[in-house]
């Protein structure tokens, strides 16, 4: 049923549960599994390029560690995982990536790191569910 699965992973507990569910599905359907982490921490209206690049480099190191662990878990189930780290707005970036990559399932955790800021505005998972071009599975 699913051939290409995308998991949004920000290292939160919700994302880890989503990852576990996605690995399970990918293993069951023999689907291709991809991880995406979005760097939202870039400083706005910076004074120097260095300030932006330093924050980006730090964020990449952070997400690479998260994705390495996630990929290791996938490999244990015989699933090959593709990694992607992109800067941008979390919802927009994930939705665009899902569309451009032709994914047929997007798996997200119900609450990520951004939830405490977006609690009253609608969570990231809600916005992704509304805008995604494919089936969305929200893991609680």
């Amino acid at each position: 049923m699913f051939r290409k699965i995308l998991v949004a992973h920000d290292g939160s507990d919700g994302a880890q549960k989503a990852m576990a569910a996605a690995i399970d599905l990918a293993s069951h359907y023999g689907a291709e599994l991809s991880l995406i982490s979005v760097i939202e921490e870039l400083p706005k209206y910076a004074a120097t390029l260095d300030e932006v690049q330093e924050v980006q480099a730090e964020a990449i190191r952070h997400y690479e560690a998260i994705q390495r662990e996630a990929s290791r878990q996938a490999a244990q189930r015989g699933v090959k995982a593709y990694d992607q780290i992109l800067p941008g707005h979390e919802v927009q970036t994930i939705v665009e990536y899902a569309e451009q990559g032709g994914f047929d399932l997007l798996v997200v955790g119900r609450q990520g790191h951004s939830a405490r800021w977006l609690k009253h505005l609608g969570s990231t998972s809600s916005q992704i569910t509304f805008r995604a071009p494919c089936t969305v599975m929200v893991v609680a």
Partner: protein
Amino acid sequence: MEQTWPVAAEWVALALMASVLAIRIRISVALMEIFVGVLAGNFLGLTTMPWIDFLAGFGAIVLTFLAGAEIEPEVMKRYFKEAISIGVISFLAPFLGAMAYAYYVAGWTLQAAQIAGIALSTTSVAVVYAVMLETGLNNTPLGKTILAACFITDLGTVVALGILFANYNAWLAVFLGVTAVTLVILPRLSRWVFARAGNPVSEPEVKYVFLILFALGGLAAMARSEAVLPAYLVGLVLAGTFLDNKVLVQRMRSTAFSMLTPFYFIKAGLYVSLPAVLSGAGLIAILFLVKTGCKVVGVWPLARAFRFGRRENWYTTMLMSTGLTFGSISALFGLTHGYITQAQYTILVTVVIATAVVPTLIAQAFFQPSRGGAMGSAPAPEALGGTVPVRATEQASD
């Protein structure tokens, strides 16, 4: 002397507060330091002292040097034609437009109008870069062209700042002559120095760069020019050398951001008068429109001539309308040299900050090209002389 340490503690506390706020709300530390300076100047009665003025001036010089050193020489060579065209017009149009409005309509003195023109001519490389990073455009020909053009615009700004107010006497000739010779020999000399210095804890390479900046800055001061002019030029000529010395750049940046630039940006915010913001709100809005309008008039047709797509054209124009660092440096130069009043300074810095925020929001909301700039109405790669590289590689994990 007994006041020095409490004052230092006060300023560093403000800098620390700005850093924490910047991390929490993901706004640049520079903008937060200006904001903290505004609050401190208007509600705490904070003032500067000579040693603070020195550190702030030093911070501006190092900031300008680092800005020049961020250029990628290969990118500039590759997209030179487009970058120089867009960059020059991006500087000239708002410089002339803002100066004309300030002089003929707002009734400012000629020197105050010149400061207004310079402060509102700038483009913020860092703001543009961060915006493009979010869409992956920084690695596309479009993105690299825009970034290269930003450097040209800022070069125009520092040259204008260094030349318009200088005394045209022997000292200026000496300053220009020594600077020209220094710029020619500096890349080779610096490579020799860095190769022999090693990486001792005494940081001789950093001291070497500071010596050059201080020496040329001193000559600039003798000529009543501005020390940021040689600092930017030195940064530009050493940019290629620093590609192989990233650690040195990081060390200089650490020194600058921890001990120098906070004093500069807090001081920049200190002189912003909130009552003047309110009373000058109309002029602030008009000057904002003048700057943005002039950028549109200058950049949009040129970008169209280079066959940018419609969306990319407006995106480029809006990003070229941003400004922050050089705009505030220019305005503070004008205030400290008595060319503009505090009210005029307030108006200019407020416009500069507004141009860091509003055009960015407009560009992102209405004209953001597709990710990677390779889809939709983006210009064909061959129109910009290069191919569209992959921005982020996918790595299969086994």
